[in-house]
């Protein structure tokens, strides 16, 4: 929630328009404004916030402005404007008149928050239907008012008029402005990502779109650049306490004792504790920080050496028992194929734990009162914060309001979910509103991690080089050692610290591709977590969960097979992919990227700087992406520079080309960062990556010089996701380019200068 909505009405007008107005006197001004704006679109009793009510999705203000209520949120990837474009087209109003309210549990249905790149794919569907239905009802209403059949009416920018006589007209504002539809729609009874509705109206065909498909600019930019937008870190309430939660640097510790006198000289500071949950609070943030540094706690080791030596993590994974396995794709006779093989190719690939390492440590503000709870959160899944807080505090969910406010970035289940529950627990324990923010180490050492894994490829080739058997098995820590949202306090650090038992899920994944090998096995195996609970190496979703690691292996392995068969990597892929859209995407990336076919790595390796190019391709939930990476390898320093990337991207109907392009660029560069730099470090007892020195990420000197994006638009196909697919192909494309440049394979991420130099020494 933010001040992006309704730019036309002044605050005074809101107050006038809305009558009895719910502005929480204690609330931050911008939240009050938001409520006022919402109130401004409607007078009279609003139906309850249920997916079955059209009013839960769309509203029209007395001045004709439209508000769309979106149960997800936008992290700067153009979802706000994309939703406005979709709604504007269905309603036939100027897109500038459409405001999008996001991620507030009091105002939006639970569409799952940001999750799985579904913002458009599933998130826009009910909005599209609701807008179409609203238009149908409004045209019907105009038909009655004007005494003309609906077939003789047209809508132009929110005005319904007779086709034959434009003077005969009624505006949306006149027809419903400020009032409610009180109209039922059919809900599919799902919550979260799959939530959808069915309506009588038929949404438009793509040929009728006017603003969908156009590159309209996001609305949140000026607020960010001129610093008028409030972040979750800026929420401030009267009598609010600042808090810091104290986490032992060592994993698997319980609290033996707290020396409260150690902070007695810090003004207003005190300790708040429940079981192993310890925090300090103070009126001034700096005093909370000081107290957190000075507080003396004696910790008790619950387990000696909870972690294996970091250097042995991949051996640990190889040797660990498999607690769950799934053969996701299994066809043909693999054993038979390997028996008749002229040649068998095998390789293993390794991927480390990685941190969300969000730009700032997570922050949340909670106000727990007898009559209700409000939480301001940067979590990308505010509706699940609502549920998690309700369970943690043992209050009914309807008594909890969670409001998403832009936070310091979020690409999955980062530390934001923990901060929200920390704040709620602290507000309950202190009886005051509490703002909690972590320090840097909380955001890197203690956030949920992307899991470490080992990926094994094995293929059988016949005498002609044809792949007759193919297996790819990933083995690693679960992608959901804690859940992907915070709806169950057992998945939060606060919950675990107060003694709630852990609730792990066992999942991983397999490559997403259409290679038509006759005998094929794609499988995954999950091993037990290193610690059952409260582990700084607990795993959960990090952008494109397990996608980069799986595809780092599988798309490099495909390249290894091409090399073994003596074929060009692009031609080899085109020979085996079976889906025509996949082939089109691979061809588009190769063509735009100026691909020169080569059956073997570049022969000239004489200079100090070696150049190479590599390709990788993958699917993701309906989206197809391919990338050509061009890199330089500095032989002496071992530095890899990802100089140029050419991405071809097919996600069906394109809603906003420029927004999509920027989203893909972010994926490319974040993917490059994870490929070249990122690895969570740990010793036997703790995570030792605590800041940007011990968890380096890409800086601008290493950013690509050029990123070319080819968008393949399919207006006839429903839009699929773009928030994550293009990150999963970057690691393999870089590694394949490294092979092209040097003739050597790098099969362990990150591709650090030390590993590069060691590999070149072997070459």
């Amino acid at each position, binding site marked *: 929630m933010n001040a992006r909505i309704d730019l036309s009405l002044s605050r005074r007008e809101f107050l006038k328009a809305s009558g009895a107005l719910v502005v929480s006197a204690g609330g931050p001004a911008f939240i009050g404004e938001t409520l006022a704006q919402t109130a401004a679109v409607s007078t009279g009793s609003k139906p309850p916030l249920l997916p079955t009510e059209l009013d839960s999705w769309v509203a029209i203000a007395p001045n004709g402005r439209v508000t769309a209520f979106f149960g997800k949120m936008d992290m700067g990837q153009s979802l706000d404007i994309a939703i406005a474009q979709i709604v504007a087209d269905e309603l036939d109003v100027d897109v500038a008149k459409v405001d999008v309210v996001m991620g507030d549990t009091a105002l939006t249905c639970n569409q799952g928050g940001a999750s799985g790149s579904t913002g458009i794919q599933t998130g826009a569907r009910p909005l599209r239907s609701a807008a179409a239905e609203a238009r149908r009802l409004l045209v019907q209403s105009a038909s009655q008012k004007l005494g003309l059949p609906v077939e003789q009416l047209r809508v132009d920018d929110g005005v319904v008029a007779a086709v034959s006589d434009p003077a005969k007209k009624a505006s949306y504002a006149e027809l419903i402005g400020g009032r409610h539809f009180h109209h039922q729609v059919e809900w599919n009874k799902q919550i979260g990502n799959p939530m959808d509705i069915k309506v009588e109206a038929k949404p438009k065909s793509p040929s009728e779109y006017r603003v969908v498909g156009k590159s309209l600019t996001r609305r949140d930019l000026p607020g960010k650049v001129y610093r008028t937008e409030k972040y979750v870190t800026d929420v401030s309430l009267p009598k609010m306490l*600042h808090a810091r939660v104290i986490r032992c640097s060592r994993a698997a510790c319980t609290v033996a004792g707290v020396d409260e006198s150690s902070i007695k000289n810090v003004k207003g500071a005190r300790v708040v504790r429940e079981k192993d949950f310890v925090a300090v609070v103070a009126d001034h943030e700096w005093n909370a920080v000081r107290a957190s540094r000075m507080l003396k706690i004696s910790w008790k080791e619950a387990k000696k050496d909870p972690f294996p030596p970091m250097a042995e993590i991949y051996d640990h994974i190889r040797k660990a028992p498999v607690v769950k396995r799934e053969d996701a794709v299994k066809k043909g006779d693999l054993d038979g194929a390997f028996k008749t093989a002229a040649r068998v190719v095998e390789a293993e690939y390794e991927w480390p734990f990685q941190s969300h390492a969000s730009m700032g*440590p997570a922050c949340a503000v909670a106000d727990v009162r007898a009559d209700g709870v409000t939480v301001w959160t940067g979590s990308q899944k505010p509706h699940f914060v609502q549920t998690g807080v309700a369970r943690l505090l043992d209050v009914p969910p309807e008594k909890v309001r969670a409001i998403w406010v832009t936070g310091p970035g979020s690409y999955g289940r980062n530390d934001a979910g923990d901060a929200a529950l920390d704040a709620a627990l602290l507000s309950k324990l202190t009886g005051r509103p509490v703002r909690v923010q972590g*320090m840097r180490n909380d955001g890197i050492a203690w956030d949920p991690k992307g899991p470490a894994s080992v990926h094994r490829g094995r293929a059988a080739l016949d005498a002609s080089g044809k792949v007759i058997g193919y297996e790819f098995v990933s083995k690693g820590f679960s992608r959901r050692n804690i859940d992907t949202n915070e709806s169950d306090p057992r998945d939060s650090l606060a919950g675990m610290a107060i003694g709630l038992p852990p609730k792990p899920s066992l999942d991983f994944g397999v490559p997403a591709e259409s290679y038509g090998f006759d005998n094929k096995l794609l499988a995954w195996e999950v091993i037990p977590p290193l610690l059952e609970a409260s582990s700084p190496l607990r795993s959960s979703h990090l952008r494109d969960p397990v996608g980069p690691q799986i595809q780092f292996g599988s798309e490099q392995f495909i390249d290894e097979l091409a090399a073994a068969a003596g074929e060009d990597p692009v031609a080899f892929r085109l020979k085996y992919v079976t889906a025509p859209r996949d082939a089109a995407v691979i061809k588009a990336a190769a063509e735009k990227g100026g691909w020169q076919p080569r059956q073997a790595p570049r022969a000239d390796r004489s200079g100090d700087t070696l150049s190479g190019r590599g390709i990788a391709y993958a699917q993701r939930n309906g989206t197809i992406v391919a990338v050509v990476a061009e890199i330089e390898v500095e032989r002496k320093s071992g530095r890899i520079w990802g100089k140029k990337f050419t991405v071809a991207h097919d996600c069906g109907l394109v809603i906003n080309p420029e927004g999509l392009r920027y989203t893909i660029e*972010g994926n*490319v560069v974040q993917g490059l960062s994870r490929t070249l730099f990122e690895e969570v470090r740990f010793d036997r007892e703790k995570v030792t990556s605590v800041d940007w020195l011990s968890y380096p990420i890409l800086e601008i000197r290493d950013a690509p010089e050029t990123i070319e994006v080819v968008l393949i638009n399919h207006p006839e196909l429903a839009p699929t996701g773009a928030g994550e697919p293009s990150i999963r192909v970057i690691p393999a494309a870089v590694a394949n380019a490294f092979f092209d440049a040097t003739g050597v394979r790098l099969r362990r991420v990150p591709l650090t200068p030390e590993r590069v130099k060691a590999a070149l020494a072997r070459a």
Partner: protein
Amino acid sequence: MASIKFAVDGRSVTVNADPSMPLLYALRNDLGMSNPHFGCGLAQCGACTVHLDGEPVRSCVMPLSAVTGRKVTTLRGLGTPEKPHPLQAAYVEEQVPQCGYCINGWIMTAAAFLKKKPKATDAEIRDALAGLKCRCATHAAIMRAIRRAQTQMA
């Protein structure tokens, strides 16, 4: 505790606080400015960057005592929608920020650098911006925005 006077965005202020407290907390908590962000507290990311007498500094490690009598400029003081700094205008035009939490560092550092070296090359710009972090990985757009601003400032 000490009473420390300085100027922020053209306005004189007095803060009564621990002189060793970092400037960031004075700006955010004592002066209620929600504009520089806490990113690391270690001068490793730039999210808290402000200008001190025109030079970019990391306010998360700058003790309040060191700003006595000096001029602090925040991103909000650098320009407004009506009178934007060329970098701010370029940031909007190039749609640079995603979460936007980092941009104090990039814009304030680049603004001071371009003032000294308006015709800086790409390599010089990349060097000048070393140490700044952007987790959304908008670096390509950052470079485009800086080049665009350079044409405005030339």
